[in-house]
């Protein structure tokens, strides 16, 4: 496609410094009208900073911003939206108790004699919904909408303010594959009516599927740019990481041994009769990775809680021939459970405490960290250093506070701690959420090696490509039930994706 002139968005020589960090180092970004432009990069590469500059959250230290050829300067997001630049943040900013219409008009409500003009608001919102085929009902309460539709409410908010430039920050992170497809349909339609879409993403396949142009940032600088049609996944990954990355590698199947873990009829009652976890039974063998696919909120948290003992449930669990029923979290861990939780910051670690202390947890009652009832400082240090080295955790040292590490390094540390237990059964949740491409590769390889060493692994992930890359068997969790099971050969994007959306068969 040819680029209409002038560009809708043109950033020239943007420099943004934070104390000790050069977040954007003379970045140029040109986005044509009616174009879907992907901005890629690892965590900390400077994408969010660049978008914050465009969106008026930060003022650049150097460089200029032009919209449609006119130089602009935003002091706040409000000024940016007035100039037609809007952003959908990762965490939505919606009022659950209010309706779609109320959420959309909030902040610039149509009024009649100083009062809210509900009729005009509803009419305007209805018209926008129909014109853009967003399939929302203006009167629905946002609380009752699934995530995919909430996201459309956010988009609708921008359209209501007549944004010509829409920035979406990792919009697919919370969506099912079919929802993602529908979002892309909406984005294409918006681009077709000459709106400009800036898509911040680190997912290669999506960028390749939906965008017209792509710009890749690494360490605050542009490391690649061009028409998406000319790019390959491997090339983009290399531009993001600065090295060759083995992408979407589907790891070979393992050789399962005896059953290590068996859960029967796990049930967690819900509030209104509908159970959150409904009669779930599954087994995991030694040397096997069983993947649990599913969109977040379909019972994953309950399944994990049932296994770890953090949640009281019906049903029985046998681990290594020992019944876990009624056992405490600690007793379950002693019986052979290791666990990488979904929430790194709140559950998997103590962010204010040092890496050393974080790595000692779980080992703090055993030799060699304890001798004659007392903790040995030297042993704690050695234990931490060994994990930091083995798992390539980048930190200023064992004393560094956990919260100062990057997401990938926190995750490597937690992985290191849990794998070091050498427990027969490992429960892993969302192992690579918010983790860079490079660290993903490392973590996946670790998991497969752990499996090949004869451990049983239960992998819970909302990332379908991850499930497909690692699992020897795939289970699909939908509305608290296991609705489908696939062998490694049967499982693919389409079949599993369909089951995740409830279309099992």
């Amino acid at each position, binding site marked *: 496609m040819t680029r209409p002139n002038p560009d809708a968005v043109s950033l020239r020589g943007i420099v943004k410094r934070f104390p000790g960090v050069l977040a954007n180092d003379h970045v140029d970004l040109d986005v044509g009208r009616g174009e879907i432009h992907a901005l890629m990069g690892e965590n900390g590469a400077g994408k969010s900073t660049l978008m914050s500059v465009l969106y008026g959250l930060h003022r650049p230290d150097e460089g200029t911003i032009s919209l449609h050829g006119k130089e602009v300067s935003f002091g706040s997001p409000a000024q940016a939206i007035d100039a037609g630049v809007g952003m959908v943040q990762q965490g939505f900013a919606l009022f659950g108790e209010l309706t779609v219409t109320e959420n959309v008009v909030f902040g610039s409500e149509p009024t009649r004699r100083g009062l809210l003009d509900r009729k005009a608001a509803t009419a305007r919102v209805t018209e926008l919904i129909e014109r853009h085929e967003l399939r929302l009902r203006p009167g629905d309460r946002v609380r009752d909408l699934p995530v995919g539709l909430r996201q459309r409410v956010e988009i609708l908010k921008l359209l209501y303010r007549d944004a010509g430039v829409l920035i979406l920050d990792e919009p697919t992170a919370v969506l099912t594959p079919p929802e993602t497809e529908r979002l892309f349909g909406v984005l294409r339609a918006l681009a077709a009516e000459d709106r400009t879409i800036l898509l911040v993403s680190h997912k290669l396949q999506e960028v390749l599927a939906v965008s017209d142009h792509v710009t890749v940032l690494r360490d605050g600088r542009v490391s690649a740019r061009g028409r998406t049609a000319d790019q390959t996944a491997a090339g983009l990954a290399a531009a993001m990481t600065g090295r060759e990355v083995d992408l979407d590698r589907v790891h070979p199947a393992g050789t399962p041994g005896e059953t290590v873990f068996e859960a029967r009829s796990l049930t967690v009652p819900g509030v209104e009769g509908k159970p959150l976890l409904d009669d779930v039974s599954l087994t995991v063998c030694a040397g096997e990775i069983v993947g649990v696919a599913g969109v977040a909120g379909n019972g994953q948290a309950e399944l994990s809680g049932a296994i*770890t003992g*953090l949640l009281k449930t019906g049903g029985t669990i046998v681990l290594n021939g020992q019944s876990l029923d009624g056992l*405490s*979290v*600690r*007793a*379950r*861990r002693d019986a052979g459970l290791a*666990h990488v*939780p979904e*929430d790194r910051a*709140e*559950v*998997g*670690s*103590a*962010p*204010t*405490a040092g890496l050393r*202390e974080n790595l*000692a*947890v*779980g080992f*703090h*009652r055993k030799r060699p960290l*304890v001798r004659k*009832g*007392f*903790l040995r400082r030297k042993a704690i240090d050695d234990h931490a250093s060994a994990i930091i080295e083995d798992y390539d955790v980048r930190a200023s040292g064992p004393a560094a506070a956990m919260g100062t590490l990057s997401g990938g390094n926190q995750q490597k540390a937690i992985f290191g701690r849990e794998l070091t237990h050498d427990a027969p059964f490992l429960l892993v949740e969302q192992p690579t959420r918010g983790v860079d491409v490079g660290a993903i590769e490392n973590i996946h390889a670790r998991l497969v090696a752990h499996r090949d060493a004869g451990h049983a692994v239960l992998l819970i992930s909302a990332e379908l490509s991850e499930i497909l890359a690692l699992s020897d068997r795939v289970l699909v969790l939908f509305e608290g039930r296991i609705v489908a099971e696939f062998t490694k050969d049967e499982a693919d994007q389409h079949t599993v994706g369909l089951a995740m959306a409830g279309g099992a068969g």
Partner: protein
Amino acid sequence: MSRVRLIAVPVAAALVLGAILLLATGTDPLAAYGAIVSGAFGPDGIGDTLAYAVPVAGMATALAIPLRAGMVNLGGEGQLVLGAISALAVGLYVPGPGPVKVILALLAGVVAGAAYAALAAVCENRLGVPLLISTLLLSYPAMSLAGYLVRFPLKDAGSSLPQSPQLSARLPEIDGVTTGIFLVVAVIAVYAVIDARTPAGFETKVTGWAPRFAAYAGIDRPKLTLRLLAASGGTAGLVGAIAVLGFPYRFIDGALITPQYTWIGLLAALLAGASPLGTLLAAVFFAALTSGGFAMERATQVPRELTAVLQAVLIIFLAATSGVFKRKAKRA
């Protein structure tokens, strides 16, 4: 910011603000401050400071123990008074040689305080009553019970005051300071070692850092709550026992409440983040401010309440710069 600056800046700021207040009342700030320092640490004052520091540091440690795990024991007064009255009853009625009576009385104080605080823990663990509420509310009946006992069954018949007879079994004194000071120091030393060197201390700290992480790691919160509260209440009970076994060797209703040992101790523990040594230092510092305040009042006519103002200003500055109260809010 370095640790030294974290303390030095707020202290300096509080002193400057206090100096302005003093100037406004027409007093020479240097003279007033000098009187506080010599009153607190001079040859005439150090005894008072230590005598006051024993219960304050003891209570500070008692409250620091659960605070290390993020649990707040607001029932220190009840545990303190119950410990005192139990020690008194044992001292009055259990027969035996003096030293044995003293030891039994101390034990009775510890057990009473521990059991009563443990009751609050059970309320949280079994009935879901938040510790903050169960400890605080259980405190009032304990104080009332002690008040009743000392007015009726344990009253000194020869006195019109709500006070008990004097005990014959006593903790000896050295220059006006009870030897109970060694017991308090020993408790703090034990707390410091457990905190720094044992798995139990480690689990306590992990719970304080991140409660959900602690639960994930298999730390049994109800059990920990029970143990920490028992240790806390036991320490408070010990402080009460030391108080009645020292001068004036009797239980006087309200005598352990009016001086605010518990609340000053709680402040010290909060400011020090419940670290054993920090809590001790903060408690001694507040004790010194208080006894120095009396000396200043005698020397300069400035009312000793000024030291309370200084203390308050200092706490606010310390809290603002060190962010001890900020951590939780930032996460939310």
